C-alpha cells in the first residue's frame, strides 16, 4: 500500500522565520561549516563534490530541515542548525565517495585496518576532493566541540575577520585569509600575486597578525570568551 508522503510541517510562527537577522547569521555559519567539511572553496559555495551536491545544495537541505521542526522543538536553534549542517555535510561526502572504498587491508598484526580509498585527482587546482579519512586526519570531524560551541567558534571567526579587515592592509589581509582560513602554507602564500614578501617575512607577518588579533579580540566585547567543558544541551533527535 502506498503511504502518501507527509506534508512538511509549516509553522509561520517559527522563531527563525520571524527573526531574519538571526536566520541570516545562522545560514552564514552553517554554510561555513558545510564548506569546510565538504572541502569546497568557501568563496565559491556553488562548487561541489564530483558527481554530488554543492555546498549550497546541502545548505538548502539543512535549512528546510531546520524550518520543518516545530517552533518549540529546540531551545537553541543555532546549536541544532550547526548539528544538522555537520551531519548532512558528512552524508554528502559519504555519498560522493561511495564506491571508492577498496577491500579492507590487513595490517602487520593480521587485524583488518581502515579501508583505503581511491583518490580522485582533479586537474582543477581549486577543487579539493575530500574523503572521510582526510577529514578525520584534519580533525574536522572532531566531536570535541558541541554544536553550540561550534556556533560560538564561527561567531569568533567572524569577529576576527571583522577586526582583520579593520586593521590590516591589503597584503596582510591576503596573508591572513590564505593561511588562517584557506590552509595555505607560507611558501605558497609568498608566491601569491599581491604578496611582495618572501616566505620568511610571510611567517613573521602571520605570527604578528595572529598576535595582534588575539590582543584586539581580548578587549572586544563582542568576542565570546572561550570556556572548556560546556554542558551539552538537548538538541532534539537528529540522525
Amino acid at each position, binding site marked *: 500500500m502506498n503511504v502518501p508522503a507527509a506534508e512538511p510541517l509549516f509553522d509561520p510562527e517559527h522563531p527563525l522565520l520571524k527573526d531574519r537577522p538571526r536566520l541570516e547569521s545562522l545560514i552564514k555559519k552553517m554554510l561555513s561549516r558545510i564548506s569546510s567539511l565538504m572541502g569546497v572553496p568557501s568563496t565559491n559555495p556553488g562548487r561541489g563534490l564530483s558527481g554530488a551536491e554543492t555546498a549550497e545544495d546541502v545548505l538548502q537541505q539543512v535549512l528546510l530541515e531546520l524550518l520543518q521542526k516545530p517552533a518549540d522543538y529546540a531551545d537553541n536553534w543555532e546549536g541544532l542548525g550547526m548539528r544538522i549542517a555537520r551531519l548532512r555535510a558528512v552524508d554528502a561526502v559519504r555519498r560522493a565517495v561511495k564506491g571508492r572504498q577498496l577491500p579492507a587491508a590487513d595490517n602487520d598484526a593480521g587485524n583488518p585496518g581502515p579501508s583505503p580509498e581511491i583518490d580522485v585527482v582533479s586537474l582543477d587546482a581549486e577543487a579539493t576532493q575530500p574523503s572521510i579519512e582526510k577529514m578525520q586526519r584534519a580533525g574536522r570531524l572532531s566531536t570535541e566541540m558541541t554544536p553550540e560551541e561550534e556556533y560560538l567558534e564561527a561567531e569568533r571567526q567572524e569577529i576576527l575577520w571583522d577586526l582583520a579587515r579593520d586593521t590590516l592592509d591589503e597584503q596582510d589581509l591576503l596573508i591572513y585569509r590564505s593561511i588562517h582560513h584557506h590552509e595555505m602554507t607560507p611558501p605558497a602564500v609568498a608566491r601569491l600575486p599581491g604578496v611582495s614578501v618572501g616566505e620568511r617575512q610571510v611567517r*613573521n607577518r602571520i605570527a604578528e597578525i595572529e598576535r595582534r588579533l588575539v590582543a584586539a579580540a581580548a578587549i572586544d566585547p563582542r568576542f565570546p570568551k572561550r570556556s572548556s567543558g560546556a554542558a551539552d544541551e538537548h538538541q532534539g533527535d537528529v540522525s
Partner: protein
Amino acid sequence: MTSKPDHVNDAINAYIDYLDGNSEGQTPSLEHLTHDERREVEAVIENLQGGRRFDPTNSAPSVESLLYGTPYYDALVGNRAGASDLASVRACVGELRPWAVDVQIEGLAAYGPSFVLVINGQPMRAQIRRDARNPAGLRSNDLIATASAVYRDHPETVGVALVYPDNHLSSVVIDPFDPEVCIEVPSGEVLGPRSRRPVRPLADAIRGYMNEAFPIFPSIQPAPRAALREDLDPALVQRIARQHMAAVVESGLRARTEAKKVAWGGLAALDVDAVKDLVLAAYRGDVDAVSLKAWLEELAVTRA
C-alpha cells in the same frame, strides 16, 4: 609591525607547520615558553584551529534564493518589511514638517526591505541595508553604486536613502548623480560613485536633502499700501529713476554688443518725469497690469 622573530612567533609558525602536516605529526612543544608567552600562543592556536573549521569570508546565498518555491518563502515574503520596520520608518519621518510624508512598503531585496517615501508628492526610496557593516559603511562606494539601479528602474525617484538598521535609522541620501562616474572640474579627475552627504538619522538626512533639492522659500509679506503712499516722495522717485537710467545708459554706451548699445544707450532720450509718473502710479496701485503695459509701450514708442 615588527619583523623580528621571537619565541612566540616561532611557536606560532611551528604550529602552522604542524597543521599543514609538515612536522611529522608531532605537536610542537610549548615547554620553553614562559607562562604569558604560552597563554598567548595557545590563544593563537585556538583561533587557528577555529579558522580551519569556519571561513567567514564566504558569501552566503540569500534566504529568498534558498527558500524559493517553498511555503517558507511566502512566510518570508509575509515577514518582509514587517510591521516593525514600517513602524520604525514611519516614526522617524513622521515629524518631517513642513513636508507631508506617506510611507509605503515596496519590497524586499537580498540586503533588506525597501520603502517608498512620498514626500509632498515626490517619491523618494529608502533601503534598509543590512549588508552595511556599520553606519559609516553606508558611504562605501559599493553601496552607493547600487542606487544607480534604483534610478534606472524608477526614474521618477528623487532620492535614495540608504538606511542602517540601528536605533536612529542612520542614513545617507544618494542623489541621481552620486552613483555615476563623472569628471571633476577643474581637476579633470575621473570620480567613481561617491557620497557628498554625511550619515545622519533618517529624518535629518531626508530634511537636509529636501532642503537642498526642493527648498521651500518663506513667503514675503508686502508692506501695507497705505504706509507706502505716505512715505513715497515724488522727488526721491525722480532722483532714483534718473540715477538708474544714467547707469543703464552708461553701460549701454560701453557695451560691445551693438543691440545692447542701441537699446540701453537709447534710454538717454527717455523723459525722466514720465518714468517717475509711471513708477508712482504702479506703486500706488493706480493702474492695472494691462494699462501699465500699454503705458510702457507708449513710453518706448515715444523714445523711439
